[in-house]
Structure formats: structure tokens, C-alpha cells
């Protein structure tokens, strides 16, 4: 068992390194790995400088967005005790997207605060889902249905606003997919800063996530403050999903797919599941983005579309192969 876990970690870390390097050297400007490495240190290779300015930011953002979304999925699944909870499905991402679109459309001067607005939007969506589904004591099916409804409302509202403001700066951006083009080092700073905070916090919270595998009643009788733990984990989950949405756009599915893969390979212990999901999520989005921009270049396929196309069949394959999904 331990052997399988170690191999899984080595494989995803190895793949992530390989894909990162491949992603840096492939595209409209092609160089060799050797040129890249010497160029990065000497700073004299013109092509490497272009790659550093244009390609590297989107690679870093893809890595952090993938990690953030997957971990957000793991945390939400723990908090809601529901294997289907995922920032995309339950509306956290679309809530985050909606509020940032509103602010950017109507108050473009506040562009700098986009991450904050995203966080507020994500938190509102999450609160709505939580409040409306609490009535039945967090019934899993009801919660997902309410999440789907909230998601539909926010997605619809966002599409309405972007279609009404076709000439605004948001015109090129779809509210249901993601593009990682034209990312700057400024975006990278925001993504890396908030993403790292969220990821570090989530790794510190692993024990609480594990505790939530037991029933509330049981935990209460063990003197564990269940609601406080839920609240704190939720904030971290919303932070991660919102920041990823603000910088990288809408990715549904990552937060569902990656934790499921993680559970089949690594198990339900969050001490390992959280770091594994972070690495595997980074790998998935980076691979999708790299394929998206190289497959039929110069046309770009949004990374979120590639994620959906590879992710869907892979998830079905995994579920059919393994009967152990989540909990009991």
C-alpha cells in the first residue's frame, strides 16, 4: 500500500517537471532544453527572454491554478462530506467570476482589487449553498442540486453582463471557459501570493479535514468544535477557488477529478491527499494548457475545454475500475 503511494507521488512530480520543461520549449518559438537552461542563467539568449516574458507567466499560473482548484475541491468535499462538492459545480467559481465581472465592467479602475471581489463573490455563492442546504442537515443530494442552481444563476448573470457590454474589456473572455493567454508577471505575483497562502493553510488543516470524516455528533462528543473547523476550512477553500478563477478563469471539473484520482491512488488521509491533489492538479491544467496552445497552433484551445475532454473519460474509467469512492 505504502509502495503504491510513494510511486504515485514520484510519478506526478516527475511528470510535472517534464511537462513544465516541455511547455517552456514548445510553441511558436522552439528551443532545446539545453538552450533554455543556459539562457535562463546567462540572460543572453533572446528567445529565452521572450519565453520568460510570455510563456513562463502562463506556466506558473497554470500550475498554481491547478493546485488551488484541486485542493479547494478536496477541502469542500471534506467540509460538505460530499464527494461531488467542487468549486465549479457548487457555484463558488461562478460566484467569484460574476462579482469580478461586475466590478470590472462598472468600476474598471478597481481592476487591481479583482482577487478581493472574486473572494467576496465566491464566499457569497458558498454561503448561499450552505444556508439553503443546511435545513436538511447537509443532505448530499440536496446540496449538490442547490449548488447546481446557484451555479446556473451566477453563470447566467455573468453571461448577461458580458453580452450587454460586448465592447468592454471583458468582451473576449468567456465566463464558462478559461484562457491563459496574455498573462503578465503581475498576474503571477497575485496568483502565487494568495495561492501559496491558501495552499499552506490547507496543508496545516489536514487533521481537521480528516476529523470531518466522522459524524458531527461523534465529533461534538469528542470535544471538537465542528462548526469552527468547517468555517475555517471553507474560507481557505473559497480563497483558493476564487483566486484561481480571478486569474485563470473558469475551470470546472478539476476539483472533482483530481481528488477522486487522489483517493483511489493515495487514500482518504488528507495529510497525503492535499499535497498529492495540489501536484496532480497543477499537472492536469499545465498539460491541458500546453496541449491547447500547441495542438492546432496558431489557434488556441482553452485549457478548460481540454481538461473537460481528457478529464471526463478518465474519471469514468477510474470509477469503473475502483469501487472505493469516498467514505463508506
Amino acid at each position, binding site marked *: 500500500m505504502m509502495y503504491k503511494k510513494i510511486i504515485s507521488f514520484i510519478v506526478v512530480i516527475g511528470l510535472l517537471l517534464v511537462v513544465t520543461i516541455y511547455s517552456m520549449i514548445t510553441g511558436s518559438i522552439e528551443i532545446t532544453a539545453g538552450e533554455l537552461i543556459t539562457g535562463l542563467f546567462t540572460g543572453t539568449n533572446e528567445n529565452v527572454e521572450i519565453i520568460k516574458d510570455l510563456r513562463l507567466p502562463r506556466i506558473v499560473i497554470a500550475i498554481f491554478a491547478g493546485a488551488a482548484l484541486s485542493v479547494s475541491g478536496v477541502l469542500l468535499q471534506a467540509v460538505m462530506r460530499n464527494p461531488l462538492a467542487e468549486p465549479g459545480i457548487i457555484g463558488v467559481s461562478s460566484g467569484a467570476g460574476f462579482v469580478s465581472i461586475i466590478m470590472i465592467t462598472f468600476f474598471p479602475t478597481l481592476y487591481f482589487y479583482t482577487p478581493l471581489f472574486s473572494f467576496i463573490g465566491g464566499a457569497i455563492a458558498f454561503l448561499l449553498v450552505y444556508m439553503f442546504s443546511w435545513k436538511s442537515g447537509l443532505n448530499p443530494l440536496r446540496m449538490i442540486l442547490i449548488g447546481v442552481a446557484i451555479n446556473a444563476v451566477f453563470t447566467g448573470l455573468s453571461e448577461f453582463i458580458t453580452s450587454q457590454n460586448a465592447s468592454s474589456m471583458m468582451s473576449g473572455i468567456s465566463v464558462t471557459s478559461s484562457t491563459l493567454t496574455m498573462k503578465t508577471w503581475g498576474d503571477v505575483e497575485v496568483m502565487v501570493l494568495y495561492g501559496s497562502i491558501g495552499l499552506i493553510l490547507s496543508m496545516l488543516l489536514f487533521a481537521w479535514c480528516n476529523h470531518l470524516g466522522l*459524524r458531527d455528533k461523534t465529533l461534538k462528543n469528542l470535544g471538537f468544535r465542528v462548526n469552527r473547523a468547517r468555517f475555517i476550512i471553507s474560507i481557505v477553500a473559497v480563497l483558493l477557488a476564487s483566486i484561481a478563477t480571478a486569474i485563470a478563469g473558469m475551470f470546472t471539473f478539476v476539483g472533482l477529478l483530481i481528488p477522486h484520482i487522489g483517493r483511489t491512488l493515495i487514500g482518504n488521509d488528507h495529510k497525503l491527499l492535499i499535497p498529492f491533489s495540489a501536484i496532480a492538479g497543477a499537472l492536469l491544467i499545465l498539460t491541458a494548457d500546453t496541449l491547447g496552445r500547441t495542438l492546432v497552433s496558431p489557434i488556441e484551445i482553452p485549457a478548460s475545454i481540454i481538461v473537460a475532454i481528457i478529464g471526463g473519460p478518465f474519471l469514468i474509467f477510474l470509477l469503473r475500475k475502483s469501487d472505493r469512492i469516498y467514505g463508506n
Partner: protein
Amino acid sequence: MEIKDISFSYQDKIKRLHNVAAEITPGQITTIIGPNGCGKSTLLGVLTNNHQPQAGQVILDGKAINKYKPKELARKLGVVHQQNTAPADMTVEKLVYYGRLPYRNTFSPKVEKDEEMVKWALECTGLYEKRNEAIDTLSGGQQQRVWIAMALAQDTPFLFLDEPTSNLDMYYQYEILELVKQLCKEHGLTIVMVLHDINQAIQYSHHIIAMKQGKVIKKGNPKTIVTKQLMQEVYGVNVVVKNEADVGMYIVPLGI
């Protein structure tokens, strides 16, 4: 532990408990009996601070239980609920370690006392050999014992069990009841449990609290309070009460 005139209702609708008053004698087994929906599990919920009563209070060591800090209370009472969930791949030992939660902080490491108590709890429940197995590989009776072991690791003077024998075969039912008896006798635990089977209640309890429609109908020693009239009143079932020298007291239900 004193139960002082507890009244409780869910969302202010139907009253589930009416002025319930009783006393739990330390070091003995008290069993709550009564028909479905009579409020016995609700009472257990109030006694373990899972429900907040609208009136009355539960006094434990001179202090109302809702005045305790969560961890402080968790060092006084352990509870085994009727329904339990845990991740399927969790090992028995890991789950039993949860019983040490009231003594630890999130980041503090395990100490010797934790290991000792977990080992003791596993041995008491006959699970020491199975400590490294995943709980979903265990039988129903063994799983029930894992949850009891978790409560034992909590090292509390009080142990509450909500229908610990439900859904178990007869052999496992008695295995659990024998364990409860042994915990009371050898380790001095005060046990409060809810049971469905009257004969098991008679056989294993020092005290019985008989409830119907949220009220205590009778309480006391099973030998004196379990009568034909009480069974008719509480369950609406016609029984004969037998008392034989070699098997002690038991009831035989005849019909309704």
C-alpha cells in the same frame, strides 16, 4: 449525574420530553427503555449535550453540562452513537485514537498516555489483533466494538450507548452486553444505554428508566418495576413475567 425536569422539543413543535427527572447512579448500569419515538434517544442526546433542553438542566459533578468547555466535557462523558461513519480505509487503531482528541491540540504529538489508553481500549474490546485493518473489512459486531473502543480511549467515567445491540446477531448482541457489564464491574464505569430488548435490559441493568411519549413512566430496579402492568402501559403488549431460580427474571410477550 442528575437530570432535573428536562423538557425538550425540536424547533418548538412537538414536545419530545416532558419534565423528565431522574438520577444516574455512579458505577452502575442504567438502561432507558420504551417504544419507538418515546424520546429515549432524545433523552440520551440531552444527557450528552447534543440537544439543548428548553427547560431544566443536567448536572454533572455539581455543574450543568452545557457550562462545560467542549473538551472538558469530552473528558467526562464518552458516547457511542447508533449510527457512525468513518472513511472506509481508516484503520481501527487510527479511529480509536480519535478518542484521545479531548486531551490533545491539533498540532500536539501523541504522548505515552495516549498510546496506553488506546492499547487498553483495543484490548478491552478484543480488537488489538485487528488494529491495523481497515474498518470496512470488519463485521458489524466488530465495527460496533471499534466505536466503543474509541469512547473507551476517551478515558471518561461516564459511557453512553445508544442502542448498542441494534442490527447485530444474537451472539454479537451478548458480546457487546458482556463487554458493557465487564466495563462497569471491573473498571467502575457509569453506563447509560438505550435498549430495545426488555429481557436484555432486565438482565444487564441495575436501573431501568421506562419512558412513553416523552415522559418517565417508572424508574428503578428492574426486578421491582418490570411488571405485567408496566409492559401493558408502556408498550401496549400483553406479557407474562416469569421468575425462575436458575435463570432469574424474564418476560414472555404473549400478544397485543
